[in-house]
Structures are given as structure tokens and as C-alpha cells.
């Protein structure tokens, strides 16, 4: 019983952390067919920005988080305006933009390393303490992560479902040309998608850094896991990504308990390959029928 509780708690924490990253990857892919390989660096940016805001500028936690989210959003918009926008609709876009975002991620990561050094730093926003649920110790930090992530997902769901911007994003994801013809300002919506995804990633980066430590390469492993989750869910499927994130979080914590941490990543990999052989467009992805 206690083991099950332990597995569920750590699985939910992992799932909550992955969910935000996965959803921001999915948003960008859904709207623009851009696979954002700078995601890992964006997570790192979030972690360090929060560190600077709270440790160096001495801001209180909510203000620091707000500033961090703004910084992430700003970087997202900059990425779109300076690089991605100029590559849209060009030959080989899908592959070239992946290479470009890899490059952006490298520049950002190297810049952060230059600024903060390569040594791990503790995230000052980490919440200490916890409580016992039966015999299982539950850190407050995990509770906060799950709750914040749930709140962010609810807000995002409301934005996508209810607002004008959300409707525009969904319209573009479904059919860009039709949306453009209906008068949706496609360029503006793209920038909004990047801002949204950047802000969410920065928030996810703060959470991540409270569990691990701040380091220039901290975003890489979670980014790969978020990719795996996206692929399992089917790229571009935002709700599917959310379910898959929690499913894989629980799967990972089960494997960590049953086989050891060493095999967590590799079993996720085996799982995703199995899923892809069975359904090449992911669990929740729609099969596309190509017409000649």
C-alpha cells in the first residue's frame, strides 16, 4: 500500500512537470508544424531567470515567477520574429526549422553557461518541508508542483476553448489556409503561440529546477522525455499530450521502483517504439490519409 502511494505521488509529480513542457511542444507543433528543439534551453532559461529574480533582485516568489514567465514568453516571441518567421513556407521547412531551433537552443544554453557558470546552483524558490500520508513522506514542493501544473493546464484549456486567441490557434491548427481566408491574422497568432509556449516552458523550468538543481544542461533530459510523451500522444494533440504526460510519469515512477532508475529512460524508449510500431501517429493521433 505504502509503495503504491509512493509510486503514485512521484508519478504525479513527474507527470505534472512533463505535462507543461509537453503541452508547449504540442502547441507549437499543432499550429506551425515546428518541432521546437530549443525547448530544453527554454526550461533552463526559466530556472535561471527565477534564480536571478529571487536571489539577485530579491523579489518575492510570485513576482519572481511572473517575471520568469514573461522572460520565457519574450524569448519565444523573439525566436519566432527573428528566425522561424523567415523560414515559413520555404522548401524543406519542417527539417530546416528543427535544425534552426537546435542552433537557438545551443546559443541560449551556451549563453546561460557563460553568465552563470557550469556548476550546479540550488534553486532558491524550492519549498522545504512536507507531511506524512500514512507512512509516506510527501514533500510540499511536490504538492505545489502538481497543483500549479493543474492550475496552468486549466487556464490553458480555458484560453484555448473560450478566448478569441484560443479559437484562432485551434482554427490554424486545423487548417491554416482556411483560417487565413476567414481573416485570422496568422502571423500574429503564431507569435502568440510562441509567447504562450515560451511562458509555459519557463514555468515548467522553475518546477524542474526545484527538484533537480540549476545547471546549463538541466533541460536536455526532460526535453527528450517530453518529446517521447508527445510522440506517444501524437504530435500536436494538446489534450492527448496531457493524458500521456501523466500516464508516462506514472509509468516512469513504476519502472524506477521495480527495475531501478537506470532503466527508466530506456523502458520509456521501448514503450514509445512499441506504440509507434502499432500506431505510427501516436496513441491519440489521427491517421492522415495522403492523397496523390
Amino acid at each position: 500500500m505504502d509503495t503504491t502511494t509512493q509510486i503514485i505521488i512521484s508519478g504525479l509529480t513527474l507527470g505534472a512537470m512533463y505535462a507543461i513542457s509537453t503541452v508547449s511542444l504540442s502547441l507549437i507543433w499543432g499550429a506551425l508544424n515546428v518541432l521546437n528543439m530549443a525547448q530544453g534551453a527554454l526550461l533552463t532559461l526559466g530556472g535561471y531567470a527565477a534564480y536571478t529574480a529571487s536571489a539577485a533582485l530579491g523579489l518575492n516568489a510570485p513576482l519572481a515567477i511572473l517575471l520568469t514567465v514573461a522572460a520565457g514568453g519574450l524569448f519565444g516571441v523573439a525566436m519566432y520574429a527573428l528566425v522561424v518567421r523567415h523560414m515559413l513556407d520555404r522548401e524543406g521547412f519542417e527539417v530546416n526549422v528543427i535544425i534552426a531551433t537546435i542552433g537557438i537552443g545551443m546559443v541560449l544554453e551556451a549563453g546561460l553557461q557563460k553568465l552563470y557558470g557550469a556548476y550546479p546552483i540550488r534553486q532558491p524558490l524550492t519549498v522545504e518541508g512536507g507531511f506524512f500520508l500514512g507512512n509516506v513522506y510527501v514533500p510540499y514542493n511536490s504538492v505545489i508542483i502538481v497543483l500549479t501544473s493543474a492550475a496552468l493546464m486549466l487556464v490553458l484549456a480555458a484560453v484555448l476553448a473560450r478566448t478569441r486567441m484560443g479559437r484562432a490557434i485551434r482554427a490554424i491548427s486545423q487548417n491554416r489556409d482556411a483560417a487565413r481566408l476567414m481573416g485570422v491574422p496568422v502571423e500574429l497568432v503564431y507569435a502568440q503561440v510562441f509567447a504562450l509556449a515560451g511562458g509555459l516552458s519557463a514555468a515548467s523550468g522553475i518546477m524542474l529546477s526545484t527538484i533537480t538543481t540549476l545547471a546549463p544542461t538541466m533541460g536536455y533530459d526532460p526535453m527528450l522525455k517530453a518529446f517521447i510523451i508527445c510522440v506517444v500522444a501524437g504530435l500536436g494533440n494538446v489534450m492527448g499530450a496531457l493524458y500521456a504526460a501523466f500516464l508516462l510519469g506514472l509509468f516512469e515512477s513504476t519502472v524506477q521502483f521495480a527495475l531501478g532508475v537506470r532503466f527508466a529512460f530506456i523502458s520509456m524508449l521501448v514503450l514509445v517504439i512499441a506504440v509507434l510500431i502499432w500506431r505510427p501517429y501516436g496513441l491519440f493521433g489521427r491517421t492522415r490519409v495522403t492523397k496523390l
Partner: protein
Amino acid sequence: MSATRRNVLAGLVLLAIAIALPFVLPGRYLIGQLTLFFIWATVVTQWNLVFGVAGIFSLAQMAIFAFGGYATAMVGLYGGWNLWLALPVGALAAVVFSLVVGLACLRLKGPYVALLTLAIAQGMYLLIITDTACFSMEGVTCRNFTGGTRGLAKYGDFGFREWLGYKYMAFGDYYLALGVLVLATAFSMFLMFGPIGAAFQALRDSPEYATARGVSRFKFQMLVFASSAFFTGLAGGVFAGYYKVMGANTLYLSPLLFLLAMMVVGGLGRTWGPLVGAAALMLADEGLKDFPEYRFMGIGAALVLFVMLWPRGIVGAAEAIGAQLQKRRSELGGTSTRQH
């Protein structure tokens, strides 16, 4: 002169220069750097077959390279084989590994392939660095099967020191790496300009039409994964024998991206792209030697700039300029004849 003959001639001239170089170069540092250049260029020519020619965005090339290197080192270490005999075994092991990767990606397209192959490389890296189980004892210390974080060592080398003496041992590695590069380049050109290359291009440019005309995606995808892995694995083996240590640092992200930048900067899918790109990146790297903190940033910036401004790379841009000049010259020629 036909394009093929021009390519062969250019290749022979370059080869002659490369053969003569060690005798005129001052010091062993440059010979070592050139040896490394040959090894990376070999991997990039083979990656170019998968990515540039067949259009499969695989990021598993360094994993295949490392697999070949590790297999060579392990056959030397645990089997006690001479490293020269271990080399082909390592290359074949890399082929088998690459076939498994190819099978896993068979039904996938574009970005899905990139994600899965990157994840496979990371999975391999994590399995190696978390390996703590004792496989054999080395005196009183315990050795892991994969070498763990310390890497594998003491598996022997190519014996150039005994053959050529201390003074010329670097020449041995140099010519071995050069030989592998020449074979790999000749092989990739043979594939690119032959019917197999045509099939790759057909599958890349219009998979539906190619399949309808009876070009089997399964057969050719497996073929490109297998054939490109042989020389990649061989390069891995040469690398292992040259450095005498095989570690998981070959699976870091930075060498993978360094090689990706070589391919992109040189020109994807171009015949001479990989060589030009590898040379350009090695030169730039040499220039940034004193500023290691900007190295990673520089590679990233080069990737962004090239895909934005010159997506066909240096070779593609040069071809475009050449075509422009040709056009202008013929136009000028045209006007002058009209005046007469």
C-alpha cells in the same frame, strides 16, 4: 569534361595533397588534427547518405559511430583480438545496430524519426554511464562491461609504434584514417551516382510515386541504414584505436551537433558538401581554440545562420554563384556576337 570525371579528378588531386601533407607539416599536432578531420569527415559523408540523399532525418549517426567504437574496443579487450581484426567486427556490429534503428523508424516520418533516433542515442548514453555492475576484475579494481563513466581502455592499438617507431607513429593513424575516408567517399559516390542513389532520391522526393513504380521503401531504407553504418562503425573503430580510450563522451550532444553543423554548413546532399563542411568547421574550431566557451555558441549560430540564409550550404551557394557567372558570361557572349 563530364561531372563524374571532374569529381574523380578533383578527388585524386585532393588525395595526392593529403598523402604528401604529413611530410611537409611542422609538428605532430596538425597531423593529429587532420587525422581527427578524416574521422569526422568519414562519419559526415555517411550521415549525408542517410539525411541528405535519402532524406531520413536520423540523429543516430554518433550512436552508430560509438557502437562501432565500443564493439571494436570490447572485442579487443574481452576477446583479446588484435585491433586490426576487431575493426571489421566493430563495423559489422554497427551495421546490425543501425539496422535495428532503421527498423524502429521504418514507419515514421520527418520529425518523428529525429526524435526517436535522438532518444535512442540518449538511451545508449544513459545505459553506459549508469553501468556500475562488475564484469571483470582488473587487479583489485572492478571493471564494468561498458566501462561506465571512465570508458574502456587497454584494449590494444594498431601497433604503429612498433612498426614505424615513435617518430612516425602519428603517420600510421593519419594514413589509416585517410584510407577509411577515401573508401567511404568512393563508396558514397558510387551509391549516389548509381541506380541505388536514384532510388533514394526518388523515395525522398516523392515517396508515393516511387513506391507505385515498385521502389520498395523497406528495402532501400534498410539498405541506406546498413551501408552508411559500415563506414561509420569503421570510423568509430579507428577512433577507438587512435585515442586508446573509448568513452561515453562520443555520445554527448556536442559532437553530434558539431557533425550536424558540418553537414549543414557544407551542403546537405551535395557530393562535396560533407568534406567542405568538415573542413570549414574544423578550421573554425581551431580558430576558437583559445575561446572554448564560445565554441558551442558558434556551432549553434552557424546552424541557425546557414539554414536561414544558405540552406544549401557552402557548396550549394558556390554552385549558385557559378551558375550566375556562367549565365552572365553567355549573355555577354550573346551581345558581343550580335554587335558583330
